[in-house]
């Protein structure tokens, strides 16, 4: 054994020396290179470091930081793969920011000032349905889901369990959907007594600039019977279009760091309620399934080719080569050339829309600091004869 010990000692010393190495800079060649047909994820090209870290821009908050869940002046839900909503001010103070369709058998009731909507099931005074939003992330999805679980006497979830929860679409985005049985002890500002055999349905959508909550509590049997109606209500929630009747030219809401726009709506068109993230939505009068909207992206917004081919993909068309895109029609707009495209086919949009026999008109305007897209899609029958109006609308867009 002594011999073994003597010979193992230098081996141990050599290992210790090897372990001590590793300081300083080593240089390697990349050896693991993978080609993919599309990236695994994309983020807005103009997202700042502070936004990636979940903070306000440090230039706005000073060196001591601030609210880690604060707003995001330049917007962008990085997990949505596009610039998305945000651009503070879209959800302005004063008027309610949402519209909805109250399900049959429910009634709207006056809720607290912190709510944007409040309902109950007719004849069921113990039920309470609320819609509210908070600026910033409201503490994050996990914190809010666990707050709700606490109200129901349920144990907290960890991040992995949260990730496994089902999703429900709110404003075209995936929101966490909870269904919690238990004893309801009352939420913030709750006036009602506790409910023994209760159930809570809840939806949390956390965005960089806002958190949106829809919550339904009540006796278990009543909630279960109204679950489909709750999901109908959630699906019907849309951003309200403020501004009333459209004058010939309207200013767009100011978007942080990006320009505002004016435009002229063609006589045979009208302004429609928009969705989150859009600058404006318009459509030919009487067209039920068609809309046309401006969408503003910071930076190069993915570039002209990517947007043209994304739209072609939505129509089930093959992507164009850069040479083919270079040959597309162009018109003057915003002091540069807008690239135009038309495509026909079956439209399948990001939010699950599906239009058979559709037509899509698109225009992409790339400027130094932003990319503006104009997209119009709907059934071919509704878009017939609208090309000139589309181009006129596009050319009327001006920076404010």
């Amino acid at each position, binding site marked *: 054994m002594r011999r073994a010990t003597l010979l193992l000692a230098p081996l141990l010393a050599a290992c210790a020396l090897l372990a001590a190495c590793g300081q300083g800079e080593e240089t390697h060649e990349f050896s693991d290179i993978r080609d993919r047909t599309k990236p695994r994820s994309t983020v807005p090209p103009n997202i700042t470091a502070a936004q990636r870290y979940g903070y306000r821009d440090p230039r706005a908050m000073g060196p001591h930081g601030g609210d880690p869940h604060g707003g995001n002046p330049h917007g962008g839900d990085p997990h949505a793969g596009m610039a998305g909503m945000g651009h503070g001010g879209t959800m302005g103070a004063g008027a309610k920011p949402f519209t909805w369709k109250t399900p049959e058998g429910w009634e709207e009731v006056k809720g607290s000032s912190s709510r944007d909507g409040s309902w109950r099931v007719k004849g069921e005074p113990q039920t309470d349905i609320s819609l509210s939003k908070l600026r910033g992330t409201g503490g994050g999805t996990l914190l809010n889901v666990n707050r709700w679980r606490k109200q129901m006497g349920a144990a907290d979830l960890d991040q992995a369990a949260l990730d496994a929860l089902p999703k429900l679409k709110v404003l075209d985005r995936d929101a966490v959907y909870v269904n919690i049985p238990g004893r309801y002890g009352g939420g913030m500002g709750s006036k009602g007594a506790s409910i023994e055999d209760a159930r809570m349905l809840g939806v949390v959508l*956390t965005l960089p600039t806002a958190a949106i909550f829809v919550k339904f509590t009540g006796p278990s049997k009543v909630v279960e019977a109204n679950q489909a109606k709750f999901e109908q209500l959630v699906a019907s929630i849309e951003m309200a279009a403020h501004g009333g009747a459209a004058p010939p030219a309207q200013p767009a809401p100011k978007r942080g760091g990006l320009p505002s726009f004016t435009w002229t709506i063609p006589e045979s068109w009208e302004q429609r309620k928009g969705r989150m993230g859009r600058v404006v939505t318009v459509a030919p009068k009487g067209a039920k399934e068609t809309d046309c909207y401006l969408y503003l992206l910071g930076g190069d917004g993915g570039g002209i080719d990517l947007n043209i081919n994304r739209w072609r993909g939505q129509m089930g068309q093959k992507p164009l080569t850069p040479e083919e895109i270079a040959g597309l029609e162009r018109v003057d707009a915003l002091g540069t050339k807008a690239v135009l495209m038309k495509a026909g086919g079956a439209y399948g949009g990001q939010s699950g829309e599906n239009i058979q026999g559709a037509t899509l008109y698109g225009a992409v305007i790339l400027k130094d600091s932003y990319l503006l897209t104009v997209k119009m899609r709907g059934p071919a029958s509704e878009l017939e004869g609208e090309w000139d109006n589309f181009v006129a609308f596009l050319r009327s867009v001006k920076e404010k």
Partner: protein
Amino acid sequence: MRTFWQKFIDFLGSFELAFALLVLLGLVTFVGTMDQQNLSLYDVQKKYFESWIVTSPVPMFGGRLLLSVFFVNMIVGGIVRIRKGKSTLGILISHVGIVALLFGSFIEDQFKTEGQLTLWAPERFSDINGNGVFDPGERFLDSNNNGRFDDGESGAQYRDPDTWEVAVTELMPTGAAREYVVPQEHFEKLEDGGSTRYQHGQLPFDVVLSGYARNARPRPVTAGEARDGIGLGGFVLASRPAVRAGERARNWPGLVVTLQPKDGSRAQATLLCKSASESQGIIPWPVRMGERRFQVDLRNRVWDLPFRVRLNRFVHEKHPGIQMAKEYSSYVTKFQGTRATDLHITMNEPLRHEGYTLYQSGWGPPPEIDPNPSRLYSTFSVVANPSDQVPLWSCLVIALGLLIHFMRKLVLHLKAESRRRTPKPQGEMA
């Protein structure tokens, strides 16, 4: 006079070394097992068994070093130098089996990949005619509220939730992407300082990684730090103690990435780390270099499968009256090229194809999270291990060797007994 090398070879093949190695292996196994009170299973494996040396809680040899030396000891002493003959045939065969087992574990250590693939089942529907297919007129639970019946999800990648990689992705104008990937084992050693530079002829910059922390979050710099020029863009990486939850660590690593353009222009740097927002993970860093667009990401390690798997149906059955699982089963379709094959994966019947094994390992959402889910998901453990059959064959060889050896011993013993019991011829009385 025996030379040093002769003595060294003697030592390498000696019984004493084999005995010392087995004692040390026992010790490292004991300490590693005890340390599972503090570390996750993954961390224990890395620290005690996939290491050359262990520095704490007491300095000792790591499992990798002990098994490597044991491998040499077996070859030198147990195969090359062993006395060869009928009496040692069984032992020799057993040693070959042990060497094969050790070699198989080396192959596994170097080439095995392991991860998870989670797929959502189709939306539930009222299967009126019981044909297992969603037919026009049947009703379904529109779980994502998109107005159409969604088939089961398909996937061709698996993700290791325990390990990470840095990926520099070039976003091509065509919409395609090229990823330049650095695996965790290259940058985790930067925890103690230093930096590592990565280069490629097609990249317009070098990538320098530094400041790795196993668990970290960003925090704004203090006024003092700002005065001293500390931080990147007003933030620093704040290390947190590594945490463990169950068998898997729930840590979010962070590091500093610097891109140094080859044309000598100013370098750009950022922190890659988890967002301070609870609902966000690590958000990639978008970078533009001239006309080219890149994203740099720190993400869970991802591997591609050479085929695509779609989940058609997930079956979860319990024994009557109790919560014990009777069956977890996934009915899947494997797509490869133009071929589609329907397969059934259940608890003891994995899918084996082209060196990949997909085991049924989980499902959800669990009832405590969603008591009435509109849709289920199935999780497969995916293992690519070129030596996965080596332990079986090695053990058979070892068993064969031992059988031969002990049978021979038994025969010799019986013969000796027989000789002993045979009465010796009596000598004539004088």
